[in-house]
Every structure is written in C-alpha cells, then in structure tokens.
C-alpha cells in the first residue's frame, strides 16, 4: 500500500538527514488524518455495517411470521430513522468514519424495506422499479449527507439496476439500459465530485465500460467495435492531450479518465481482432494497435503510469500476436519461442530506456 511505502521512504529520508524526524512524523500523521486514507478499523466497521444490514435483509427474506407484518414495517422504518439520525449526530460530533457505517446501514435498510413491502403485498415482476427506487434513495442520502460511503453503495446499486434490467428484457430495443447506464454513471460521477469519494469514480467508469460491452453484445458487428474504439480514442485524446479543452477537468479527476478511455480504445481493438478475418485487415489492425500502444506511452507516459503500463502490455501482446500470425507457421514451435524471447527482450530493453528517460525528465522538471 501507499502508506507503507510512504512510511519507509520517510524513515529513509530522516535517516539520511534529508528530513528531520518530527517533520516525518507530522507528514505521516497528516496522511493518516485524511478521510480517504486506509484504516483497518474503518474497513472493519464498514464490513460490520454491511453484515448487520445483510442480517436485516435475510431476516425479511426468511419471511419471519412471528412478528405481525405492520410491526415489521414500523420496525424497519424505525431502523432507517435510527441509523440516519445516529449517523448525522456522529458527523456533528466529528466522527465521520463511524457515521459512514450507520449511513450505510440506513441505506441498505431502505432496500430491505422495499423488499419487505414487496413481500407483504406479493409483488411479482418489475424488480427493476424496486431497484431504481432503492438507487434513487441511496443517491439522495449520499447527496444530503455528502457521504462517500453511501456514494459507493449507490455505485454498486447502479450495477444492480443494470443487471436487473438486463435480466428482465430480451432485446436492446426493449430496455432502458441504453440511456439508463450512462445516466447513472454521470450521477455517480457528480456525487463523487461532490462527496470527494475518489475511489468510487472507478465504479462509474466501469459502469460505462460495461455499457459499451452491452452495446457490443447487442450489435456485435465490426462497425460497432470500430465506433467503440474510435470513441475511446477520441475520449482518450480529449483527456490526455494538454491542448484539449477538457484536459484540466480530466486531470482534476486523476489518472482515471485517460486510463479508462484508453482501455475502451484497446477493448475495441481487441474485439476487432476477432471480427476481422482477411490477412490484410488483420495486419493493418496490428499496425494500428502498435501505434496506439506507442501513442499511449508517448502522450500519457509521463503523467499516467496506468496508461503507460497498459501501453507496454499491449505493445508486447500485439507484437507476439503479429509474430505468431506471420512467421509463426514458417519457423515451427521452437523457433517461434526463440523469436518470442528475442522480441520480449527487445521490448524489455525499450521499456527500460523509456522508463529511465521518464524518471530523468521528472528530476529535471523538479530541479
């Protein structure tokens, strides 16, 4: 983890006299006090909260007849009120981590209440509507409390909504997913920006990637794959090029926008590999993929390690793929392994050179 490396480095710098020990302590303390930093206690508390919420849900799923059903509804509503009020009180008292656990219990209990009422009145069908109501409740709670934990729950619920709709409908023309998934992703991203829940951003981006996969699943033609790859390329350039008007906004969101748009571009190219049969098409595709790999390293290599490593991996995989497609059949298995070894060694050498240049550029920029 980052904290472990930070602690080690700080200790090292203190030993070398680059930093005095009290400052090192203060730096570490500052990191620990951040709300987003990892703390075992916080994680365990969240797990406890989710386990307790799961217990509530299971109690209802077991249709516990010993209690009259009106009492059950009132009980679960009281649980929602109790969890939210305790959470609010804890935020006021300055205990945001414990508060997050209570807010999570409240939000999951809301879903339990929806399920309970569905059971009371024997609802069948329309699970999508129930999931959407739950998602909306979580979004509103996340916004009201400005809570990163509830934003994360809302993110997972967005996936659950998509899954429910996907299960219920048969064809893309019947489903709301086409517009619902990007809409939910946008809502989650807005919440992430508002609640400062940086890591939840990944859920939203994964939702968009899943949406593209869904679109391709519905129309699996080369055209769809080309469109997806082109959109990925466009989004990547918008996020990564310093000249782009969106560059500042994307950088503000960290490495993720450039990385996920680059990922979409590569997934589009990957799918195209199975769509194209003709040798000429495949060769052209291979060349494009290699250019994309190099482009990613050149444009984002310096500031975005995730894109850089994805670029390296793509370059290596594509080179081996092209080698096996072209000369693989001529030279036989053992010869092919030899060539592969040489190719990988060459790539490794190139990677080392590039990495060295980046680290040099960094030192120069800092000096």
């Amino acid at each position, binding site marked *: 983890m980052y904290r472990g490396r930070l602690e080690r480095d700080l200790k090292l710098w203190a030993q070398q006299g680059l930093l005095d020990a009290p400052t090192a302590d203060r730096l570490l303390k500052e990191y620990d006090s951040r709300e987003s930093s990892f703390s075992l206690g916080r994680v365990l508390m969240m797990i406890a909260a989710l386990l307790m919420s799961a217990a509530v849900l299971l109690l209802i799923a077991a249709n516990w007849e010993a209690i009259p059903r009106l009492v059950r509804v009132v009980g679960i509503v009281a649980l*929602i009120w109790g969890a939210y009020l305790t959470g609010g009180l804890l935020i006021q008292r300055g205990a945001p981590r414990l508060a997050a656990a209570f807010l999570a219990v409240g939000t999951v209990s809301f879903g339990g209440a929806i399920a309970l009422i569905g059971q009371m009145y024997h609802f069948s069908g329309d699970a999508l509507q129930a999931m959407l109501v739950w998602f909306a409740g979580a979004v509103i709670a996340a916004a009201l409390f400005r809570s990163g934990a509830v934003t994360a729950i809302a993110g997972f619920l967005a996936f659950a909504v998509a899954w429910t709709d996907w299960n219920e409908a048969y064809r893309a023309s019947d489903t709301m997913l086409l517009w619902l998934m990007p809409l939910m992703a946008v809502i989650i991203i807005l919440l992430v920006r508002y609640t400062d829940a940086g890591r939840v951003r990944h859920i939203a981006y994964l939702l968009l990637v899943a949406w593209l996969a869904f679109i391709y699943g519905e129309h699996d033609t080369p055209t769809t794959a080309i469109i997806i790859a082109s959109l990925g390329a466009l989004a990547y350039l918008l996020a990564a090029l310093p000249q782009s008007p969106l560059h500042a906004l994307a950088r503000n969101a960290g490495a993720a926008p450039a990385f996920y748009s680059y990922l979409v571009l590569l997934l589009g190219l990957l799918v195209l590999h199975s769509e194209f049969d003709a040798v000429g098409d495949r060769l052209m595709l291979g060349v494009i993929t290699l250019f994309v790999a190099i482009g990613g390293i050149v444009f984002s290599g310096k500031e975005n390690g995730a894109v850089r490593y994805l670029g390296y991996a793509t370059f290596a995989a594509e080179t081996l793929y092209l080698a096996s497609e072209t000369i693989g059949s001529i030279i036989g298995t053992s010869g092919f392994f030899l060539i592969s070894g040489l190719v990988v060694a060459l790539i490794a050498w190139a990677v080392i050179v590039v990495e060295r240049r980046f680290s040099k550029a960094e030192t120069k920029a800092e000096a």
Partner: protein
Amino acid sequence: MSILSSFRIPPIAAAIIAASLQTAVLGYMVEGRASILRNGADIRLKTLPVDPRDLLRGDYVILSYAISTIPKSIVTGEVPKVNGRERLVVRLKPGADGLWTATEASFGTLAPEEGSVLLRTQPFDYYSVTDGVLPDSLFVSYGLERYYVPEGEGKVLEDARNQEELEVEARVSKDGTPQIARLILRGEPVYDEPLY
C-alpha cells in the same frame, strides 16, 4: 467549486430529510396497495399447474392462471406492427362457477363495461414471426404470479395448485392493477390478506 467544497447541510437536518423522504416512498408503496385492497373490484381466478411441478421456490409459490394465456381469437383492435415490449388490457367476466375468465383483450384501450373488470398486463415480449399477424396465443403476466408464504408452508399450496384446487381472489384498481386479496384452497379461504 469553492462554495461547493465547504457547503454541507447540517447533518441532523440531512438525516431527517433523508429518513422522511424514504419513509414517504415506503408509505406511498404501502398505501397504493392497501387502497386497491380497500376499493378494488373483486375477481376470482383459477390457478393452473406450473412446471416443474415439484420445485419448491423457497419462500414463495409461483402462480399461473387460466387468464395468463390470451388466445388470438379474443384480441380486438390494432395489432403491433413490429416486435417489442407491449402491454395488453384484458376484459374479465365472471362465469357461472364464480371464476372470472378473459373475454376480450386489446393492445390499445377497452371501454369500461358493466359486469366486467379491466386488467392491465405487465409489459411482455411480443414476438410474431410475420409482422402484423398475431401468434395463436399470447402469454402474459399480471403481477399476481407470486405468493409469499411462511417458510415450509409453500408445499401444501403448490400441491393444491398442481391438482387445480387452488383459487385466488384479487381486487383490481381502476387503472387495472390487481392485488391478491386471499387464497381459496379447496373452496375454503386461507391466508386472508390484511390491509396493512
């Protein structure tokens, strides 16, 4: 961004607003169903065996009805030109035995009629081999297809259903949404549904 980054609703107020909104949604769901039970039109439906017959579905029984199959002959009005998600309005009329059967169905609307009840189906996947030509029968659901029972009590109902000895009494709202009111097992009412 600077205003946003410092803005926060007082946490207690946030708690009250969030809990109130969620309670209101839950209350709306309950009252929507309770009002159907209070004011809806009564119908009685025959259930049919379901395959696989002996699969106990955990804590609810799957119900299937004679009115779940709509024969081509009773469909009136416009027929969808393309395949897609559709809903039907179905007119039910009581038979001599007190059980209600489907007498007319339409993809559009049906006029209310004395002595009949209109029921709206859930959206279903309409599929026709030839565009504009109805298949021989349409299979629809109404939102009445599940009955939650205490653990372990489902088997009796499933057996009765498979021996065609189970009937369902439902109430239907003005807009055609049905709600199960009680189950009738071999002529005897069981599981009377309370309003709340």
